[in-house]
């Protein structure tokens, strides 16, 4: 029988995977996907905690988060497409026109 802690550990792992992806992957689309994984890890936490507390708040919050994530993804993909048109590359290391 999985308890709250199991779900919290799972979402913590997912969040860590997402964070690692943002730092380690060298493709803009994969980086965007990693951020989505982070947000979904948070969603899992909300649902698990809501279930544990016996309220529906957690599940309702998830809908807000999903909406925001969709809006973010739309803007993010638009920026990536524009960037690809200007640079013909999806590797973040190629973007060096702004530097220390």
């Amino acid at each position, binding site marked *: 029988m999985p308890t709250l802690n199991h779900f919290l550990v799972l979402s913590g792992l997912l969040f860590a995977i997402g964070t690692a992806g943002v730092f380690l992957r060298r493709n803009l689309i994969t980086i965007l996907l990693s951020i989505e994984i982070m947000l979904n890890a948070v969603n899992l936490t909300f649902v698990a905690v809501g279930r544990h507390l016996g*309220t529906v*708040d957690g599940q309702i*919050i998830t809908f*807000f988060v999903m909406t*925001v994530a969709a*809006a973010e993804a739309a803007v993010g993909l638009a920026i990536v497409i524009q960037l690809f048109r200007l640079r013909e590359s999806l590797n973040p290391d190629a*973007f060096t026109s702004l530097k220390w």
Partner: protein
Amino acid sequence: MDNLQAIMPMLIVTLAAMATMLAEAFRRKDERMPIGGLGVIGLVGAIAAAGLLWDRNAVGFGVIQADNFSLFVTVVVAVIGLFTIMFSSEVVEREGIPSGEYYTLTLFSVVGMMMMASATDLLVIFIALEIMSIAVYVLTGIKRTDAAGTEASFKYFLLGSFSSAFFLYGIAFSYAVSGSTRLDALSTAIAQSASAPGPMVWLAMGLLLVGFAFKVSAVPFHMWTPDAYEGAPTVVTGFMSTGVKAAAVAAFLRVFLSAFEPLRGDWTQLLTWIAMLTMVVGTVVGVAQTNVKRMLAYSSIAHAGYLLAGIIAASAIGKSAVLFYLASYAVANVGAFGVIAFIATRERNTGELTDFTGLWYAKPMLAVLMAVFLLSLGGFPPMAGFIAKWYIFAAAVNEGFYTLAIVGVLTSVVSVFFYLRIVVMMFMSSNKAELEVPPFGIVGTLGLALAAIATFYLGILPTRLIDLATQSISTIF
């Protein structure tokens, strides 16, 4: 009705934003339309509504609180929006920025900022944060053919949404602690377990701290700031360096001084280190910059450090000092970016330090205004920045944060070097008048004049605004 009253300023700006969107949709291809004017009407209306709501403590839907604190920030943010629109009118045309989208996004992001300052529910703060940020991501890259702008926009977007994931994870743990996302419920839950807070409480606090630190660009979460500020169109940089910071600091203050108040002894220690690092890194790296926009980005990081110092020394003086600092920093910074935008041309718009060589001989008025704004940012009397810094450091000393105050004073002395460097280039350079400054119109000139007057007014007669700031924090916290 009471519900709608509390959100009236936001409602008015939202309607204005929708009106600008419709105006753009119905505009014929080469018809000229004063779309920015609609935004001005909306923002002035929001300021009037905030004035009417003052001292009324209206609550909207249980999650929006129109107390004096949020109304103060609402007015500051609306004024930032007004200056931005005034500076934008010529720039938008010259740089070929799509004007309908530009004004609409500016206004929507102002709505997000106002909401962030007035929300008393973590989830609403998150939604407001996203309303503000998503609009600003797009504004940063609104010149689609500009490689630097698009790159800046992507970097800002990436680190912004990365940090909001952390922020949201913090909200999830707060929800686990208190069973609600309301700040008052969280405060009660934390107060009950204040003697031995569980790991959930620490996680919630730490993750929310990281999220806020990203938004106010505190070290070590400041990496996006110089890139985003340099690449964005200059008027947008002025807008986001002031508006986003004001909203984030307001929400930071509210969350940490209401919900996490019982653990204040713990988070002030951590925040003191962050604040000192922020001041030092912002100042030291700022000295090495040769691009004015990038230099002002590091200066804004240093200013974030001073604002954090005010939050740490959260006595009555400290909290009103933060509000006063926000107002005086906003007028000076938005004005400085306004001048940079005015001396740029279509080809020369990166804001290099050399662009300012001999500005005094080409456009004496612009040089004088720029000097006023920079000296205010550097904290020279009789400009607003001096009083603002003085109050912050006085509060820090009163509360016994001596190291913080000493680091603050030392870094602001060092920061004078890079502000004065621009002033020296403008006034004392021997190669005169190579500079070709495009003509600029009456609205922008009026905006710059108002910003300069406000800088002097807050510096010479600060008591009125300080009284208002004190009133606005005395009702809450």
